[in-house]
C-alpha cells in the first residue's frame, strides 16, 4: 500500500503563482479525478509533481510513501514510482518504442545488472496483447508522426511496462475522438488495480463515463474547491463551471 500526499502545494512559473495551496492524498487502488476549467493550474500541478524544471515549488511538499520527493530529479521521481502520462508527448526521432522502453527498464535496474532481452520482449508482448496493441507498433519511433490516439496509446503502453505506483494523467482525453477515447480508457481500466493510484486530470466529464473515478475534485484558481464522488462530475456536467464559481462567490 502506497500513498502520494500533496501538502499545501504552491507552484510558480517564473514569478507567477499558478497552484496556490493544494492538498490531496491518493492511496494505491484509488482513482482520483481533478476537473476544472482551462488555466486553473491542473497541468501545472502534474508537471510540478513530476519535476519539470520550468515549475518552481515555492512552498508545501509532496510525499511518496512518507518521504518528500521535492529534492529529487525528475528521473529519480520516475524511478521511485511516479508516472506522468503527457498531454503532449514528445517525439523522439529514430528511437523505437521498444528501445525506448528498454532503456527505461534498464534504468530501473541496479548498476552492473544486465537486462535479459528475451524476457523483456516477452513481457512487452504480453502487455501489448493485454492492451490489444499491434506488434508492429513498438518498432515505430516514439510518437513520431503519431495520431493523437496513437500517442495516448503509446503513453498507456509505457505505463503498463513501467508499472508505476502512481500515474498522473494529464488531459488524457484531449484531442481524442470517441473511438480513441474508448481504447485509451479500456487501457487504463485494464491497468487499474490495488497496486496503482491514479490522478486523472480532465477538462471534460466525458472521460469519466469511461473511467469511473472513486473521487472527484474541482480545481479553481490553483486550489481544490470542492470534492466528492463520481456524482460531483455529473453535477458539474449538468450545471457547468459557473455553478462552482457562484458557490465560491457566495462562500
Amino acid at each position, binding site marked *: 500500500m502506497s500513498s502520494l500526499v500533496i501538502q499545501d502545494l504552491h507552484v510558480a512559473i517564473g514569478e507567477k503563482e499558478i497552484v496556490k495551496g493544494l492538498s490531496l492524498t491518493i492511496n494505491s487502488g484509488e482513482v482520483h479525478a481533478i476537473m476544472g476549467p482551462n488555466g486553473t493550474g491542473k497541468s501545472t500541478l502534474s508537471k510540478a509533481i513530476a*519535476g519539470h524544471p520550468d515549475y518552481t515549488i515555492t512552498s508545501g511538499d509532496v510525499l511518496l510513501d512518507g518521504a518528500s520527493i521535492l529534492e529529487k530529479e525528475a528521473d529519480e521521481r520516475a524511478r521511485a514510482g511516479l508516472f506522468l502520462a503527457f498531454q503532449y508527448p514528445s517525439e523522439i526521432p529514430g528511437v523505437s518504442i521498444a528501445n525506448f522502453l528498454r532503456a527505461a527498464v534498464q534504468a530501473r535496474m541496479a548498476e552492473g545488472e544486465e537486462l535479459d532481452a528475451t524476457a523483456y520482449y516477452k513481457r512487452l508482448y504480453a502487455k501489448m496483447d493485454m492492451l490489444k496493441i499491434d506488434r508492429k507498433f513498438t518498432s515505430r519511433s516514439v510518437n513520431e508522426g503519431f495520431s493523437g490516439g496513437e500517442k495516448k496509446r503509446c503513453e498507456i503502453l509505457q505505463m503498463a511496462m513501467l508499472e508505476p505506483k502512481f500515474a498522473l494523467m494529464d488531459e488524457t482525453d484531449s484531442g481524442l475522438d470517441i473511438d480513441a477515447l474508448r481504447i485509451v480508457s479500456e487501457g487504463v481500466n485494464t491497468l487499474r488495480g490495488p497496486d496503482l493510484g491514479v490522478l486523472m486530470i480532465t477538462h471534460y466529464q466525458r472521460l469519466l463515463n469511461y473511467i469511473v473515478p472513486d473521487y472527484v475534485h474541482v480545481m479553481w484558481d490553483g486550489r481544490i474547491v470542492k470534492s466528492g464522488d463520481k456524482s460531483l462530475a455529473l453535477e458539474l456536467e449538468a450545471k457547468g463551471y459557473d455553478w462552482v464559481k457562484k458557490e465560491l462567490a457566495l462562500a
Partner: protein
Amino acid sequence: MANTDTLAQEAAAADNPVAGIDQTKGDFSYDVSYAFDAGTGLNEDTVRYISSVKKEAPWILEFRLKALAKFRSMPMPTHWATKDLENIDFDKIRYYLSQGQKPKRTWDEVPDDIKKTFERLGIPEQERKFLAGVEAQFDSEAAYSNIKDIVSKQGVIFVNSTEGLREHPELFKKFFGKVIPTGDNKFAALNSAVFSGGSFIYVPKGVKVAQPLQAYFRINAENFGQFERTLIIADEGAEVTYMEGCTAPKFSTSTLHSAVVELVALKGAKIQYITVQNWANNVFNLVTKRGIAHEEAEIKWIDCNIGSRLTMKYPGVVLKGRKARGEVISIALANDGQHQDTGAKMIHAADETTSNIVAKSISVGQGRSTYRGVVHIPKHLKGCKNNTECDALLINTNSRTDTYPAITVRGDRNYVQHEASVSKVNEEMIFYMQQRGLTEGQAMSLAVNGFINDLARQFPMEYSVELKRLIDLEMEGSVG
C-alpha cells in the same frame, strides 16, 4: 505462447546488445621504451632518419624529400578553415617512434607493454570473433599484423605500408600517391614526407573477402605525430571491407594525426572503408582520404568522427569509370572544445556515375561542427546523379553548426538533390525521457543515437555497438 517466445527471442537478437559492454576508455598509456626515435622537430635529417631505419629504396627517400619541400612551401589553410591550425607547433612534435621494424604475426611475440594496450582495447578478442585480419599500429609502426590463412590463400595481401613498399614495390609504386598527389594539401605533403605505418592491401581479381580487415591506430606517446599511409587496391570484381579504429590517451599538449588513405577500386570492385575514431581532445586530426572508382566500381566511406580537438576530413571519391558509385556516410560529434570540420567530395568524371552523401553532425555545448562538401559534375557528362543530405543536431544553445555545400553541376543531363536540416534536442524531449526514468545523460545519449540510427544500422553490428558506447560516454560526460 510459443509464438511469442520465438518472436521475443528474435526481437532481442535484432537489438544491439547494449548491456554488458566493456566501458574501457582509450585514456590510458603505458611507459614504453623506443628503440627508434627521430627526435623532436622536422628537417631533412628527420626524413632521412625515417627512411634509413626503414631501409627504403632510394626513390622513396626522394619522394619524401620532395614532399618535405612541398610541405614547407605551402601555406596553412587557415583562410578557409580555422585559425586553430596555427597552434600546431611542428618543431615540438616527434615524427617517428617505434620499438621495432617488423610487426609480429602472433600476439605472443608482441612486447608486453604494447600487447597489454591492445588487449585493454579488446583488439585480439575482436580478431578472434569477426575479423579476417588485423593490423595494430602503435605510434609509428605496426606492432602486430596478421591475416587469417583462409584469406591469404586467396592471394589477399594485408601488410603495413613499410612491408608493402619492401615486398610489393611494383604494385605499390603503380598506385602510390596517384589518388592523392603529394601537393594535394599541406597535410598530405607532410604525410608524404614522414609517413610510417598504415595498411597496404591488395585483393586479387574476383576475390570477395567475407570478413572485414581491421587496422587499429594507437597513439601512446606525448607530443607525437602519427602519419600512417594506407593504400587499398581492389582488383577487378574484388570486394573488401576495411575498418579502422583510433584512440589516444589524453595529454595536455597537442598531438597530431595526419594520415593519407588512398583507395583504388578497379572495374566492378567494391571497397567499403569504415572509420570509428575516438581521439582524445588534444589531437589535431587532419586526414586526407580519397578513392578512385573505375567502371561499375563502388567505394563507400563510413566515417564516424568522435573526439579530437580539430578534425578536418573530407573523404572523397573520383568517379572515373562509367556507372561508378561513390558514397560517404558521415557522423561527427563535436563536444565542448572540439571542432569537427568534416564532409565529402564527389568528383564525377564519367557518364552515369552516381554519388550519395549523408552527413549527420551533433554539436554539444561549445562544440562546433561544420559540413563542407564538394560535388562536381562537368558539362560533358550525362546521366550522373548526386544526392546530398546534411542534418545537424544541436544540443544546447551555445553549439554551432555550419554547412558549406559546394555543388557544381553543369549541363542539363544530370540530376542533383540536396537537403539540409537543423534540429535541436529541446528541454521538453529531455524531460519526457527523464520522466520515464532515464538520467539526463542517458536521455541525451538516446536522442543522439536516435538521430544517427538510420546510418548506424548500415554498420557491421560490432561497430554500431562501439559507436553507441562512445556516444554514451560522450553524453554522460557532457551533462553539467
